[in-house]
């Protein structure tokens, strides 16, 4: 595992279309540096794009924290999307395929959950929403050195 200048958590603003593109690029770069395969990178970047758009459209903007996880058997990346918007009133409904409140396809929440390994929503009406997702580079733990 390489130590890199990206080892510390990074926070990026989400306030415009251009920010979404920047988030996608930064997530891809962080995932590539951690050794994610192409498919894993694509899945995580796509999930990030969905969730960042939710932050922008439904949360009225916010930010994302990108945290590389280097301690486990396999490197991972944690992304926390934070907004101070109206919150999600009905979480179960928001997690249903096809449910939409923003004129999209309604796949943002439910779909991105399927693209990552861990998915957590913390939402309080009137206070905001934090969606935290984690993906690991490999499901099979890599062979330890020296064996």
């Amino acid at each position, binding site marked *: 595992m390489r130590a890199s200048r990206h080892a510390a958590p990074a926070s990026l603003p989400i306030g415009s279309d251009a920010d979404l593109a920047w988030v996608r690029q930064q997530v891809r770069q962080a995932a590539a540096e951690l050794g994610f395969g192409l*498919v894993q990178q694509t899945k995580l970047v796509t999930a990030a794009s969905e969730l960042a758009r939710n932050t922008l459209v439904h949360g009225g903007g916010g930010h994302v924290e990108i945290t590389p996880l280097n301690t486990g058997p396999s490197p991972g990346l944690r992304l926390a999307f934070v907004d101070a918007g109206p919150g999600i009133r009905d979480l179960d409904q928001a997690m249903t395929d096809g449910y939409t409140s923003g004129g999209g396809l309604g796949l943002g929440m439910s779909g991105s959950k399927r693209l990552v390994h861990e998915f957590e929503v913390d939402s309080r009406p009137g206070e905001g929403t934090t969606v935290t997702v984690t993906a690991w580079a490999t*499901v*099979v*733990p890599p*062979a*330890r050195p*020296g*064996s």
Partner: protein
Amino acid sequence: MHVSVSDENAEREPAAQQVSAFLERRREQIAQRWADASLFRTVFTVSRDEAVEAGRSVAAALAAVAATGRLDDIRDPGFAAVRDQLGRMAASRGRMGIGADGLADEVAALREPVTELLRAEFPDPYAPEAQECLLALTVLMGTLRLVVLETTVSAGEEVIARQREQLNEVATPVIKLWESTVAVPLIGTLDSARSQVVMESLLDAIVAERARFAILDITGVPTVDSLVAQHLMKTVAAARLMGAECIVSGIRPAIAQTIVHLGIDLGTVLTRSSLEDALAYALSRQGVEIAPVRAADAGAR
């Protein structure tokens, strides 16, 4: 035999220190005796010096652990220096067909030579002080046994994980059957990890071979449950997004029954009963017709 159990906690620390000092002092003799024990003798077959050297490093590690007083801590950093070595020894015994229980016995056998040496250190081996040191040594040797077993288990897990990964790749060859037609014969159980590999190799082959048709042959898949069906449907959908048509072949009657019984809807998936039928379909879609060569033509060659 008298062991002062009541004072054990208070007295353990000095006993451990004494054992540590003893292991340091007698390291050479211990190593010499261990070299003849079955574990070292059978692992280091090339030269006895090697076995002695290995024995020295294990004794040194035990001394370091004893010095900390945490005799039963398999996570003690003192073991770190020999963990790799113990792992290699365990792996070597494993290759010779010695199971975990056999290995545990061999490690247990290392205790006796050291105990003898330790006992000889005391004028009265039945004195409480001697008993405590012997007890401490017993605990320490038990911990060593756990460490060895742990290295075999984790080495085993690693091997299994690695083999699994290799098997996933080996077990999914993508074959070009015809111009623009590729096929994957699936054999064995399809779990999530494996279907992921299947999907990726099939899609890569579609690009590499510029395939229009991709055949997933499940003749060798023992059972199709809703999870497997879901994986198949995802693969079909992904191939379609890339512009290739996917055909699932080799659905045996029993599997067809199961699919119906489970209420799985394979409606959007094109199926054929055999690989042959699937190939015939792909060829006819490309305007290729296979017909027997007439006897006269064949004879003319």
